């Protein structure tokens, strides 16, 4: 699960990492009020950042500075409601603009191949790490944390030196270890601070001091672990989710809406992707990716059918179930039930093989209105043909 920058900053702050103050505003007047508070406590400028879960908000104009409260309101007005990669901006983060001396990159991420948590650091921050890696692989330092001992002190020091943070060694070591602590405490897949910056601040006596701060934060959480962190579920941003996605998640169904007109219901992600590939190869267009998951029961099948039919462009439905954990007869019962409740008549091509497939065929033949296919290729062909037929007039 992706979470917003402001929530990611809260998770970092909870581990004791230095994060400058921020506020989240849903309206331009709230943004102005927050900006006024920051100006009152000595900020020269504030930064206003769109809170969206997609990348590239800076390039899209979703990050801007303001010098006074009135300008903050103007900027927030411009950013709120803005469309960034198809997502409407509904909130902004307001923070005092930092006086940045230098920016570096620091992140830890789940390294699947190595089965370790991988730290990545670069002396050059504020840029996209993928772009930096493509340009100059040497610019990035990689260190694996130990799965039981975590990021060791010497590894944190090594990273700090590679990032050119000698003058801030103690802070840098604490930050690197804090990233790891954030990852473990929340079962994160990724904790990224970009930029981690050396910023200049005025000390109590008016003299200038330099210190490290996490100016941006990105955290993604392991969906499989959310059940043991009940507080984190609240960070899910429902603003950016389609109601259909919300229903799918509640039912334990993986669902992604696509552009086409053939609704697909498949058990297993690999088979679902392969089924979509075959639909395209046969000249059809899948309307969705839908993995009904293991052990599909009748009620789950009915829910999957509702998700598919919620898309008005669906002209045919292709069901491909290979029974293993899923039992064909349960799927068939779910389909017959869903068919009976179906709000509109859409041709349905079904192919069920594996566990209890014969029973499934009996159940579906008895019900009628379902076209049974003999193989995956046959099912795809029939579904593509059905999607091209004129809808039966009712």
């Amino acid at each position: 699960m992706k979470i917003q920058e402001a929530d990611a900053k809260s998770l970092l702050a909870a581990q004791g990492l230095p994060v400058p103050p921020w506020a989240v505003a849903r309206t331009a007047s709230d943004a102005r009020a927050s900006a006024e508070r920051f100006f009152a406590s000595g900020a020269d400028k504030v930064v206003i950042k769109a809170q969206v879960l997609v990348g590239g908000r800076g390039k899209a104009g979703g990050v801007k500075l303001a010098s006074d409260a009135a300008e903050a309101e103007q900027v927030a007005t411009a950013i709120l409601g803005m469309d960034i990669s198809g997502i409407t901006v509904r909130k902004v983060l307001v923070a005092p603009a930092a006086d940045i001396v230098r920016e570096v990159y620091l992140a830890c991420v789940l390294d699947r191949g190595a089965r370790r948590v991988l730290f990545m650091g670069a002396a050059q921050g504020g840029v996209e790490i993928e772009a930096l890696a493509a340009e100059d692989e040497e610019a990035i330092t990689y260190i694996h944390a130990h799965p039981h001992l975590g990021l060791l002190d010497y590894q944190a020091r090594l990273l700090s030196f590679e990032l050119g943070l000698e003058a801030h060694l103690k802070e840098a070591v604490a930050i690197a270890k804090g990233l790891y602590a954030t990852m473990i405490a929340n079962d994160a897949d990724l904790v990224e601070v970009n930029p981690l910056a050396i910023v200049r601040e005025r000390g109590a006596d008016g003299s200038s001091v330099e210190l490290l701060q996490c100016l941006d934060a990105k955290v993604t959480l392991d969906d499989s672990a959310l059940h043991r962190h009940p507080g984190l579920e609240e960070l899910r941003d429902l603003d950016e989710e389609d109601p259909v996605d919300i229903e799918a998640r509640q039912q334990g169904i993986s669902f992604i809406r696509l552009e086409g007109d053939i609704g697909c219901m498949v058990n297993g992600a690999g088979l679902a992707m392969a089924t979509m590939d075959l639909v395209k190869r046969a000249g059809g267009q899948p309307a969705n990716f839908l993995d009904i998951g293991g052990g599909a029961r009748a009620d789950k099948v009915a829910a999957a059918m509702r998700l598919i039919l919620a898309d008005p462009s669906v002209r045919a439905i292709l069901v491909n179930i290979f029974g293993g954990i899923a039992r064909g007869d349960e799927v068939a019962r779910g389909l017959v039930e869903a068919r009976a409740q179906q709000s509109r008549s859409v041709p349905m091509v079904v192919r069920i093989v594996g566990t209890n497939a014969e029973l499934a065929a009996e159940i579906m033949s008895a019900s009628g209105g379902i076209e049974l296919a003999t193989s995956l290729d046959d099912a795809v062909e029939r579904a593509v043909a059905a999607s091209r037929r004129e809808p039966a007039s009712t």
Partner: protein
Amino acid sequence: MSILVGRDTRLLVQGITGREGAFHAQQMQAYGTNIVAGVTPGKGGQTALDGSVPVFDSCWRAIQETQADTSVIYVPAAGAPDAILEAVGAGIRTIFCITEHIPALDMLRVMPVVEAAGARLIGPNCPGATSPGRAKVGIIPGSIHREGNVGLVSRSGTLTYEVVLALTEAGIGQSTCVGIGGDPVIGSTFIDILELFRDDPETEALVLMGEIGGNAEESAARWKAEHLRDTPMVAFIAGRTAPPGRRMGHAGAIISGGSGSAADKIAALEGAGIRVADAPSEIPRLLMEAGVRPA
């Protein structure tokens, strides 16, 4: 011969009294797998599968009493990492974990213990393995197999069944079919399984079923070119038409940052002399063109 599971396998089923465990234990036994014990903490002394299999409180007791040497885990995600560690601690050296939704960081902590013991973990979130005519461990439907000489390794579950069925219908039998699981952190990689197939005299050709995301297929392709040059191999990659940046069910199935795409994988496989099928149903033909003879 075959790999991982066979006639000699003495299987222990962890979670044998649960819904999935009970159902699949029955299916495995019906296939001919030698299930010698079940473990459900607190249910020691009971029996499963109509009285034919004793249930124990711990893996230690089960091994002591039955000399089980292989374990399959149907324990829910919250208890599955512990179940893996218990099996390892008790001395089991081949463990299949069927359970899905185990947090990735749990698996990171489990794996060093598995490795230090010299044990082999398949999965989690995997369908298991079947050596046709000998034994099946996991959840792959037994009826789709046929005995033969093609080894199959796959990241998917049901897609594996699809291909196995296509092979069987074309008269091409299998030595062993292994699903390694679709999770980000898994116990055995494609290469681990290919190494076992390399040392199995009965396996004459290979099928590799991959999907978008990660770079396991690319690594496997390089390994094949180096170590299995003369063994015919056919591959399939699911997710050619998947939109980038979206997670397709499997945690593994996501294309990001221009890596892990189907095109990259297909290029790597073809570069290693592996033919890549456009559809699962094409795999038997490509195998036959590579010299595999149907029964």
